[in-house]
């Protein structure tokens, strides 16, 4: 079947991408100027300590062997130990990755749910006041710096109105006095698994402002892409034909035109998901969100290469998976995609 073949092709391509990135990360590790053994050996090491570290880190083996070991350990989730904290990187990721994914996924969903209907609505009323207002909104959403938008939201919803929490992932009463058991690391899911609806609501409330902040940019762009694609599609003959058959305008917009028009916006939102995984440092800082972005930027500053390598690969895999989901969605929405 076309669809199955298409998915297989995309999956193979994704596997190649992951392999390529693994290789790149390894190569970069060979050329970074700082000596990993010296870093691993701790502060002010002597020659003997460095030599010992060199053996522990297996730095003397021939390159192909080292790459093979590296690839195998990455694939099995054994990312090694942070040079700096000496903690297992996989354990750190267990905490930071779910926090980041929770934020990235919900902001991506928000971008979809705001950007695409807004694009449809403005295209349907092209030239009206609503359309102009929407365009202004999308420009603001795209142009406003993230930190400023974040602080604006905090000011309005946390300080003035007091209806949403300022920062953090959970209220202090919960996280300190009655913490959630760590099951998946996703607070929303863990709260459901633990059967604690109040905690679920609390986690959701904490998620809204940072997710909205991250969603602003992709939502703005998705709206513009959807709007222009819709305007093009709405002038097609099959839309006139659907109207001439008496179909209600709502079904024409969402059931007929949007399916032809949603492709570019979906692609764009998929790309912004990748960005949200590590590019959200500012948002994580402002909202005290313990995510991957801060973890990685700290490790960059301390040249903690194993952490950088692990994070790079994990992000690559997340992104590639997200892209597969988007490709699959595109193929289902528009069957011609699978035929190209």
């Amino acid at each position, binding site marked *: 079947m076309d669809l199955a073949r298409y998915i297989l092709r995309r999956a193979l391509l994704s596997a190649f991408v992951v392999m390529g990135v693994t290789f790149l990360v390894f190569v970069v590790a060979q050329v970074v100027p700082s000596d990993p053994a010296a870093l691993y050996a701790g502060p002010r090491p002597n020659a003997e300590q460095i030599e010992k570290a060199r053996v522990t880190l297996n730095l003397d083996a021939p390159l192909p062997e080292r790459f093979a070991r590296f690839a195998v350990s990455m694939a099995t989730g054994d990312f090694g130990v942070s040079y700096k904290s000496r903690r297992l990187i996989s354990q750190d990721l267990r905490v930071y990755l779910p926090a980041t994914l929770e934020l990235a996924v919900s902001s991506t969903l928000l971008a979809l749910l705001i950007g695409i209907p807004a694009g449809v609505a403005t295209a349907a009323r092209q030239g009206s006041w609503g359309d102009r207002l929407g365009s202004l909104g999308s420009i603001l959403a795209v142009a406003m710096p993230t930190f400023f938008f974040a602080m604006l939201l905090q000011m309005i919803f946390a300080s003035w109105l007091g209806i949403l929490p300022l920062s953090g992932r959970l209220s202090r009463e919960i996280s300190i006095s009655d913490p959630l058991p760590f099951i998946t690391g996703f607070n929303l899911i863990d709260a459901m698994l633990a059967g604690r609806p109040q905690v679920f609501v609390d986690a959701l409330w904490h998620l809204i402002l940072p997710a909205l902040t991250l969603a602003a940019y992709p939502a703005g762009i998705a709206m513009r892409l959807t709007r222009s694609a819709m305007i093009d599609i709405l002038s*097609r*003959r*099959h839309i*006139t*034909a*659907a*109207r*001439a*058959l*008496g*179909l*209600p305008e709502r*079904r024409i917009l969402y*059931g*007929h035109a949007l*399916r*032809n028009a949603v492709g570019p916006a979906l692609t764009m939102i998929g790309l912004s998901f990748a960005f949200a995984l590590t590019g959200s440092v500012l948002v994580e800082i402002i909202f005290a969100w313990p995510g991957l972005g801060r973890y990685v930027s700290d490790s960059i500053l301390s040249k903690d290469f194993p952490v950088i390598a692990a994070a790079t690969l994990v992000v690559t895999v997340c992104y590639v998976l997200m892209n597969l989901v988007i490709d699959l969605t595109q193929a289902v*929405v*528009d*069957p*011609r995609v699978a035929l190209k």
Partner: protein
Amino acid sequence: MTLLEIKALSVTFPSNTGPVQAVRRVDLQIERGSIHGLIGESGCGKTMTGMALLGLAPQGARIAADVFRFDGMDLTTHAASLRGRRIALISQDPAAALNPVLTIGRQMDDVLRTHSAQPKAERRVAAVALLTATGLAGPELLLKRYPHQLSGGMQQRVVIAQALATGADFLIADEPTTALDVTVGAQVLALLRKLVAERGLTVLMITHDMDVVAAVCDRATVLYAGLSVEEGPARAILTHPRHPYAAALLAALPDAVPHGQRLAAIEGRIPSPTQPITGCAFALRCPSVMPVCHEVPPPRRGGSDHGWLCHLDGQAP
């Protein structure tokens, strides 16, 4: 009984360089249960006339008419509510008229659920019946297909089935055979005639081909540069065209010319819709043009059954 009556319909687009007259002055009178041809060359306003009837003229269009009545109702106010209920369109170019990303089943069902409260299973049965009625084999399988997986003839039949699915009794068929090869086109025309007889439909058959008029139409209106220049029984127009333009259209038919002889194609082009017309619209291309044709609009001649606009008194050469 008259189902559709139009007098002096015009569709104008105001623009900076003066009005664009897509339709200048069209009269139409269509009897219930008949197939009425609307014939003219590309750009003369056939599609726009149909769109005006459906209330789907593009944004910015100004529609005016002395009489604009469908079954006793004024179309200026009722077009939107009649659309898809009493009046449906068989769109020009079926490949473009079907949504490329939706299955045939979904596109049939969308029409059916708009116009009836039947449950899904019954609508499916209805869709299969309609596809069968339009002569499509294996309708169940077809429901799962996408438009690009169908031949042009099959697509045209699907578009016809969609129009039937609305339950409308007046169909506007916009060049239903232009995109098809001759044999398939003839089959589609035969199908339409059969459906008209079986279901008591009325059809406005838009075409640029006198052969189509000859094949299925009861009466016809000849359109030139947004003007209806001749109207009458199809047979009369085909055998004794009165307007020189109708005569020229007829002479351009391949089998009207002895074998090997050049087609008597009409020299020149129709006046552009931005061009004001002072005398007769056809004067610049007319083989029997007289000085008066450039200055004075031609009078209406003939009777109520067969009428035409021409300065010539009598038969066209």
